[in-house]
């Protein structure tokens, strides 16, 4: 655990040295997370209350970002929608990260036929378009929050298997692992205590980059109609509804689009900065 903290504090130091992009990303992400957590406090209206008299109102001082076809406040729906995007993004990436890392370490450590089989499956998953795989899984399972999380997690397991396997192959031959083995360490303990801590920080850094992709995929699937069912406010779902009325009410599609973009951008900025800071090769060249 201490090595993780060490690596991350190192990352912080490198970020402070020049990564203005990364800091901007972190700040932006913090604001979005805060908005999602404080949604009931800061949302000016209820996201679900329909008000037919006030439908399709353009942005005004009462409704900052306008109202939709049911007279619901767009800003409040965007604020609540942030919760779904972040929850789906975070949970799906946690699942993909854990399953992928365990599989990758096992595959690299055990080697042989098991490794060959896992890598064949991973190559297959990597070459199949991830959005289509997500669509297929979401469509087969049926639209719901849990199934959406599972579908997105499935599309993102493969890169983590790769990322965990490669260093395992190197680490398992190192002297300190041999030493642990000769001292009578079991395989499980070697993987947990001696191998995992050495690759976990890279996995976490990649996690923030892939969470950006997860949120993008969630928005895309919701836009297609495979997301969390209405009337729950989701950004992709709002864009879908707004797109149907795009000729009359541009604000319906544009504002949630801006928030999807900002969230994905924040995670990409942060992930890029962290990767540059933790990658020794890049560090040398800069």
């Amino acid at each position: 655990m201490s090595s993780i903290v060490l690596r991350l504090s190192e990352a912080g130091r490198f970020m402070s040295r020049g990564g203005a992009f990364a800091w901007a990303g972190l700040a932006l992400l913090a604001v979005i997370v805060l908005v999602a957590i404080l949604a009931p406090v800061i949302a000016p209206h209820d996201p679900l209350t329909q008000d037919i008299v006030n439908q399709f109102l353009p942005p005004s001082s009462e409704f900052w970002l306008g109202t939709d076809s049911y007279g619901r406040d767009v800003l409040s729906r965007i604020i609540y929608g942030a919760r779904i995007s972040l929850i789906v993004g975070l949970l799906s990436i946690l699942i993909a990260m854990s399953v992928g890392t365990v599989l990758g370490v096992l595959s690299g450590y055990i080697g042989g036929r098991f490794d060959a089989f896992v890598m064949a499956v991973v190559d297959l998953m990597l070459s199949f378009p991830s959005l289509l795989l997500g669509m297929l899984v979401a469509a087969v399972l049926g639209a719901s929050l849990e199934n959406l999380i599972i579908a997105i997690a499935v599309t993102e397991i493969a890169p983590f298997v790769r990322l965990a396997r490669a260093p395992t192959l190197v680490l398992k031959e190192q002297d300190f692992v041999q030493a642990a083995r000769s001292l009578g360490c079991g395989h499980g303990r070697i993987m947990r205590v001696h191998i995992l801590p050495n690759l976990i920080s890279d996995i976490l850094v990649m996690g923030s980059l892939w969470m950006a992709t997860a949120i993008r995929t969630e928005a895309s699937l919701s836009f297609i109609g495979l997301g969390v069912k209405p009337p729950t406010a989701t950004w992709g779902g709002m864009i879908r509804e707004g797109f149907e009325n795009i000729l009359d009410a541009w604000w319906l599609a544009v504002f949630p689009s801006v928030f999807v973009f900002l969230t994905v951008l924040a995670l990409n900025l942060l992930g890029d900065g962290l990767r540059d800071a933790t990658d020794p090769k890049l560090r040398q060249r800069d």
Partner: protein
Amino acid sequence: MKYALKRISLGLPTLLAMFTAIFVIIRIVPGDAAAVILGDQASAGALEALRQQLGLNEPLSQQYLGFLTGLLQGDLGTSLVTKRPVLDEALRVLPNTIELAVASILVGLVLGLPLGVCAATNRNAWPDYVGRLFSLVGLSLPAFVSGILLLLAFAIQLRWFPVIGTTQNAGPWDRLLAVALPALNLGVIMSAYVARVTRASMLSTLGEDYVRTAKAKGAAPMTLALRHVLSNSLLPIITVVGLYFGTLIGNAVLTEIVFNRPGLGRLILGALNTRDYTMLQGLMIIFASFVVLANILTDLAYAAVDPRIRTA
């Protein structure tokens, strides 16, 4: 040529594995597939008829065998909604999708390569920062978001382009106008990937000794950047373009939906909305075949660029 044949034969097991995976995923529909397709109000007779039609009463191994023999004969099944062969439906709109894909790859390369070269040769100066920011923005835009924004700005507000995609008997000029905006949408996103990897690849080549030698011999900056550096940075760029193909397919599906273009993307959306699982399965198989084809082409492109791979 021998290399090409060898590479193509290697693609076959991949293809078989992908088809099998699609077959399996489609069949993990929870509960009775026929009931899922027809809804709650379906009569027992209709359910039984559909089960018969889909072959759901046969054992799974039998179904799989039928599925594979069908594929070998070029039979992707019959759409549950239109009752027409899936392959016919797909082939009818395929030219539109291919047109869009080719146009967007052209835009992506024409825009992305110079941007990457420019960023790498002006490292840590303003062209580099502009290029990197552009890449980040491109990587952060979901294809349907950028598509909607382009549609709003250029088709609805400025009216430079038609809002509705191609019509069946449009002239060449109308076709070009109709494909321009969707291709620009896909191409700009792709150019973000291309620019990023071109920059990174050029930067690592720029440090090589022979580049310094060329510089010392007085090679013009332009010749140096293009002939000495770029031509030796091509392999990673080809890799990314090849790997990007899968993303391109996903983005093309979203783009076709936004721009209301007839194509495989709209077919998929229709299949999802009507629970047309045969159509869905057939389209996934078509996409998988394209991916394998793209992988083979990528490897052949390696060999064309780098003679070492051909002879190895």
